[in-house]
């Protein structure tokens, strides 16, 4: 076909792993993947971590990161096999025909050089334009990407602009040489949700205005549905399914794709309010020692027994600080907390053993929440021993009960955390919290480090345990899809304050305050045209004001 830009045929990529103390072994990272991308089209590559999506993306520049080797297949760009191009041929191609936008722009820019020098570097190097023209081009791109002060932002150093801006500058850097193909490698993953939508819209506009083709790599199907014409779903280095975007998200053919599309579609009915809350936080204000700023300002929320209160906010909103205040790790400077009918001492040291037992915590990173030198049996058994004095066979039996409750069965008690998968680790942490027979568990971003399907399983488990044990959750998250799936009531936090608080149905129904509106409307939805809709309605509101 005349207008085929990129044609990858039966690509196979391998790497060698060097586990300490063991013989090196070869791993297949990408196995027999083929794809074809026409000029001016955008293809989304989607998959969980380890799916090989970034590796495939970089193969379009014949680049292997960290000892990765392309061991089979062909990569044709504009009809030439670039795997046979040789070093000089590759240099002529990189930065000219294909460019790259990395996930972390903060690390991808040289800290010692001004942004403009880096943005126009490839254009000058490949003699595609003179300096004046290249700079004019860059400024034009800065403007169309919605960067503030497009004329002068190029004079800044990378650390002088924000993360969202830097990501847009990186996009400008990729577009400046007018390439045929841009590889976007998770360009919005590291950003907050309200920043992500702006960057996403800017990228989409820039792609459309320049007519460039793109490979868009991400783990978030809702995001890729907004920018891609077609989508390829990958898992464990193999292709699962490929097709037009509309077909993938509305009529997926494979089970795995169906699961990805329907993730977080858990239907959770709101529970009726109870008489007496298990936790009542009243007017709590907190600050970190030595810092003059209040990270929590006059926060009041309450949580009913057996209910879930979702605390939602972006990074820096104070949601994790609220958890630290409740657990006693950061004693508040004002306000009080009542728990199970008792007043909670502000300091951890002042709390009774029952306070500690009945108020448990699960962490975001299960990896570092478990002592790597203790077995699963010790980890789950310790609270049994510590709070209830269980020993020996009695304790082991109870550990096994808990392992059954988290659907992990026999044989896990003797294992070490390093031998478990990410989802299993988080399950063990849940079991450790349950072992204390708590009234309430604080869940701090417990699913955000997990792949969507695994996260889904954890959420279902938590709901299931809540129904059986009647435990209440204070669920801290930045992800509104999770909130919808699990919450009975919601507190929206912004800059240390609770800006909106009530039952799920109240909070998620209009009229909204400005911040909640911004937050809710920024969460990508899995339907075509969502991004355009949001941008258009924001323009209209802007015009109306």
């Amino acid at each position: 076909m005349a207008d085929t830009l990129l044609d990858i045929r039966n690509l196979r990529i391998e790497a060698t792993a060097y586990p300490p103390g063991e013989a090196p072994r070869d791993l297949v990272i990408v196995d027999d993947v083929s794809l074809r991308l026409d000029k001016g089209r955008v293809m989304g590559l989607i998959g969980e971590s380890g799916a090989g999506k970034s590796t495939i993306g970089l193969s379009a520049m014949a680049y292997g990161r960290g000892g990765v080797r392309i061991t089979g297949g062909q990569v044709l760009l504009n009809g030439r096999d670039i795997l046979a191009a040789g070093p000089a041929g590759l240099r002529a191609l990189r930065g000219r025909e294909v460019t790259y936008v990395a996930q972390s722009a903060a690390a991808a820019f040289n800290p010692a050089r001004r942004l403009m020098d880096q943005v126009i570097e490839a254009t000058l190097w490949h003699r595609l334009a003179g300096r004046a023209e290249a700079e004019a081009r860059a400024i034009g791109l800065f403007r169309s990407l919605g960067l503030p002060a497009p004329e002068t932002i190029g004079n800044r150093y990378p650390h002088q602009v924000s993360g969202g801006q830097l990501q847009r500058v990186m996009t400008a850097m990729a577009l400046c040489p007018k390439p045929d193909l841009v590889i976007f490698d998770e360009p919005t993953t590291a950003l907050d949700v309200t920043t992500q939508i702006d960057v996403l819209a800017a990228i989409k506009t820039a792609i459309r205005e320049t007519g460039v083709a793109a490979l868009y790599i991400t783990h978030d199907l809702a995001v890729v549905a907004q920018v891609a014409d077609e989508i390829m779903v990958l898992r464990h280095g193999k292709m699962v399914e490929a097709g037009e975007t509309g077909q993938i998200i509305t009529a997926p053919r494979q089970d795995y794709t169906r699961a990805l599309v329907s993730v977080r579609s858990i239907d959770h009915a709101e529970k009726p309010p109870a008489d007496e809350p298990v936790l009542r936080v009243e007017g709590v204000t907190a600050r970190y020692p030595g810092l003059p700023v209040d990270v929590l300002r006059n926060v009041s929320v309450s949580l009913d027994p057996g209910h879930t209160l979702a605390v939602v906010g972006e990074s820096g909103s104070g949601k994790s600080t609220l958890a630290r205040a409740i657990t006693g790790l950061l004693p508040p400077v004002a306000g009080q907390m009542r728990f199970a009918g008792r007043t909670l001492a502000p300091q951890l040291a002042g709390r009774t053993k029952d306070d500690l037992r009945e108020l448990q915590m699960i962490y975001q990173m299960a990896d570092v929440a478990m002592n790597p030198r203790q077995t699963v049996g010790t980890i789950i058994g310790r609270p049994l021993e510590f709070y209830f004095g269980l020993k020996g066979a009695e304790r082991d039996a109870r550990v096994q009960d808990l392992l059954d409750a988290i659907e992990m069965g026999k044989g896990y008690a003797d294992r070490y955390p390093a031998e478990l998968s990410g989802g299993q680790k988080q399950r063990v942490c849940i079991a450790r919290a349950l072992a204390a027979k708590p009234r309430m568990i604080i869940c701090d971003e417990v699913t955000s480090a997990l792949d969507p399907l695994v996260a889904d399983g954890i959420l279902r488990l938590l709901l299931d345990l809540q129904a059986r044990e009647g435990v209440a959750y204070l669920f801290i998250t930045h992800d509104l899809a999770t909130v919808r799936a699990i919450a009975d009531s919601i507190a929206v936090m912004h800059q240390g304050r609770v800006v909106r608080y009530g039952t799920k149905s109240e909070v998620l129904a209009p009229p909204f305050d400005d911040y909640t509106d911004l937050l809710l409307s920024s969460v990508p939805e899995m339907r075509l045209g969502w991004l355009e809709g949001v941008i258009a309605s924001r323009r209209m509101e802007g015009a109306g004001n």
Partner: protein
Amino acid sequence: MHPVLKLLTQRIALGLVLMLAASVMIFAGTQILPGDVAQSILGQSATPQSLANLRAELGLNDPAWLRYFRWLGAALQGDLGTALTNKQDIATSMGLRLGNTLFLAFWAALISVPTAILLGLIAVRYQGRWPDKLISGVTLATVSVPEFLLGYIVMFYLAVKFRAFPSVATVYDSMSLGEKLNAIALPVIVLVLVVLGHMMRMTRAAILNVMQSAYVETAELKGLRPFTVIARHAFPNAIAPVVNVVMINLAYLVVGVVVVEVVFVYPGMGQYLVDHVSKRDVPVVQACGLVFAAVYIGLNMLADVISILANPRLRHPK
């Protein structure tokens, strides 16, 4: 105030405080024992009366802090006291020897710094291949070997077997530069070998760290030539860590010089210090310790100052 200026002021102030504190420690280090300078001068057979007289003469009956301030005050004015053993002025005897030591250290640094950086670059360029492994292996060996072994091996082969250079490094003022260089060739070779390993290893690590950063990958993906990637993107960020490495190793060299001077009977500070430790000549030992500590602390401070100056985040604040 510009943040760089502020940090520099803080770091230099810290350096001065450390030097002051080091002087306290060196002074205190010689006060640990009940026996004192008077005892050392007169020996065990001294009568109580002669001891008391000498103590009064030397001001030893004053409290330790008063003696410290007297000692420091004089040292700051260039008066390091008189040696107990030969009654000579320490500052005068030391001046000549310090010059000799700096002469030796200067030539060792002049050879070892470029060599270490070059070898470091080669090791990075051929990372994981035989030149890297060879350099790393030899480095591991030189790091584990005592200075005096290197000294005697070099002396045994180059001076005794092949008679290429004199085995004893005697220098005096009337020698020409060429003669002096010939005389110090062996100690310089040994000093170079002593610091080269450390310096090369640390240089390699510093450059590798920069080469593995995401911005170097970005530059490669722009299609730049390897040389341009290194010159434009790696080098400006590698200067600070490499200079830091060099300074730290020069500080290390100051210590290495002590042993090497003894091996080659070179009339420098190290030889002077060791001689007077054996003779228990406390004022000389204190003075030498103070000078060595000052050089060491000064070089470490310089390393930090350069890192601060080279940091773009500090030079261009938000």
